């Protein structure tokens, strides 16, 4: 036992007691469970047809090849609109949404959190209330709004329905709550006007929350087919997710194009993975700060 501890110390690994070992094992099992779909997506995309339909299915691919991707590109090449147009749309919409949602959320959360204007609690409650609506419930009113605004078939039709994102306002608000009031007052005394306080004090101090919201916003817009389905009539205005969904729709009992669907799933997934890996550290900070236990005053941060 002593030798093991010595070895752990040598490798700079933490020495754990019984309970911690138990928890760690439990977490490892959970994470394997969570990891499984990701591993499956990667392997599935590389499986030849012969392996796609094996029963019972294999998780790991035996003879990886690029046949599925070839099929996907073949299908894509034969469509009227070049695939690059869909990709451009998706990237443009996603980047725009990420910037827009982050900006709107932080701009909305700051006054609710720090300027206790009359009725700020009601406003916040309403924002939280909107979380409870199923997306399907608002599709028709949303359609009416977009149609009346005359932004059908434009990029605004993609952005606007996504712009108000209650979850991100909530996360931002909880995070800004943790910033001590004294910091803002000190900035006032230093001569900062309202917007300077926002720009130089609030925004830099909630970068972790910004990163989290960016991930959520990216995921929401990248895989969003609702706006393309409902508000875009022209094919060249639809996004990549929509294009892929047309490939894979109605495949439940169909053998054709299963390979292309598997490849498409991987392509859809990869940007999410990278964005998450890039921002994950900050995401954890946000969750810890705005967590449900979050009553702990973060005076420490300011000290």
């Amino acid at each position, binding site marked *: 036992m002593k030798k093991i501890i010595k070895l752990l110390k040598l490798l700079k690994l933490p020495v754990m007691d019984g309970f911690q070992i138990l928890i760690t094992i439990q977490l490892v099992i959970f994470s394997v469970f969570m990891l499984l779909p990701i591993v499956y997506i990667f392997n599935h995309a590389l499986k030849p047809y012969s392996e796609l339909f094996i029963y019972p299915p294999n998780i790991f691919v035996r003879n990886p090849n690029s046949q599925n991707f070839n099929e996907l590109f073949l299908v894509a090449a034969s469509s009227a609109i070049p695939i690059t147009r869909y990709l451009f749309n998706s990237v443009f919409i996603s980047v725009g949404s990420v910037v827009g949602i982050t900006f709107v959320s932080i701009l909305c959360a700051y006054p609710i959190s720090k300027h206790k204007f009359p009725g700020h609690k009601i406003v916040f409650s309403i924002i939280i209330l909107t979380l409870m609506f199923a997306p399907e419930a608002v599709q028709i009113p949303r359609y009416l709004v977009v149609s009346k605004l005359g932004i059908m078939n434009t990029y605004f039709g993609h952005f606007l329905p996504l712009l108000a994102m209650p979850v991100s306002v909530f996360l931002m608000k909880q995070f800004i709550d943790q910033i001590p009031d004294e910091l803002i*007052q000190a900035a006032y*005394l230093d001569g900062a006007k309202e917007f300077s306080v926002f720009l130089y*004090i609030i925004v830099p101090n909630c970068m972790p929350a910004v990163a989290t919201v960016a991930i959520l916003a990216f995921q929401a817009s990248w895989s969003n087919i609702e706006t393309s389905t409902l508000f875009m009539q022209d094919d060249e205005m639809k996004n990549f997710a929509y294009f892929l969904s047309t490939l894979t729709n109605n495949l439940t009992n169909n053998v054709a194009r299963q390979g292309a669907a598997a490849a498409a799933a991987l392509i859809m997934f990869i940007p999410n993975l990278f964005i998450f890996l890039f921002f994950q550290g900050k995401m954890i900070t946000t969750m810890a700060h705005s967590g449900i236990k979050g009553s702990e005053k973060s*005076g420490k941060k300011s000290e």
Partner: protein
Amino acid sequence: MAGLKIERLWKRYNDTAVVKEVDLEINDKEFIVFVGPSGCGKSTTLRMIAGLEGISDGEIYIGGRVVNNVVPADRDIAMVFQNYALYPHMSVYDNIAFNLKLRKVPKKEIDRRVREAAKVLEIEEYLQRKPGALSGGQRQRVALGRAIVREPQVFLLDEPLSNLDAKMRVQMRSEIVNLHQRLKTTFIYVTHDQTEAMTMGDRIVIMKDGVIQQVGTPEEVYDQPVNIFVGGFIGSPPMNFIEGELIEEGERLYFYNQAIKIAIPSIQAQHLRESKNIRRKVILGIRPEDIHQNSLAFGNRVQAEVELVELTGAEKYLHISLEEKKVVARVNSRSIIKVGSNVELAFDTDRLHFFDARTEQRIAN
């Protein structure tokens, strides 16, 4: 450089007033300390001076100008917060320079002033660090540095030492006093610690429940507390209070209750007679250091059993009971007194304070 004047200042939250009718004049270059228990309105008053709280009623003048509706940035003040409120994402240098940058001071000038302040406060080595990497004392200095570079007319300090450990607190205490002498600016300092108030202030403002109790130099508030609250708040351990009656026996006036009978010196007796307090209930106040052991004074002795002995090193405190009332006496630390033993203590009659039992205000002198 400017003085400050507060006229009939009120602060109300809904129906509860937290600052009531505060009138105060603060001279130019003065170091004034607001002291009182928590919730007495001292911080609120300071925050009203800073402009961080609205004023319900009354006026605040800085350098002869009414500042009620002036935004904090234009009041020509600087404030140091209890938790320092350093911007965590900026380096020490940027923290100190933030104000100057906002005021669009030329870069060279900013650099000169920041380095000068850093030199005064001995934080030159930390300029590139983030506040998170500093100790409490260093953060305190950065917060002071941020105030210094602005060259304000008035410095406001809101319990700046309460987050420091005891040793650091004593050190920073003298450093802030030195800083005041060096900058020759008006300082307004809020604390709940009477030691800080006594050691630092040119004048002390004692507040309770939103009302100023007494304003005076440390000597004045210590030697002539206007009421029981001030007497009990200033000084550690606090003043002893003993209830009793004033009675006349022949020519002499005595303070009398079941346990003690003290002859009052003739000058003070004269005052007490004039203020018509004879045969009325009064409260006698006496500081622990004015109760002596082995005194040569006649007459004013009490016999009591020692209930507790506290040794602080330099001195020793004896706790005794007089008619159920706890009384603390300060004696020589080398005296050999044990719990349970009987002592004879003498009251220094030149240092007696009398308060009205009903109003708790000081009677005569």
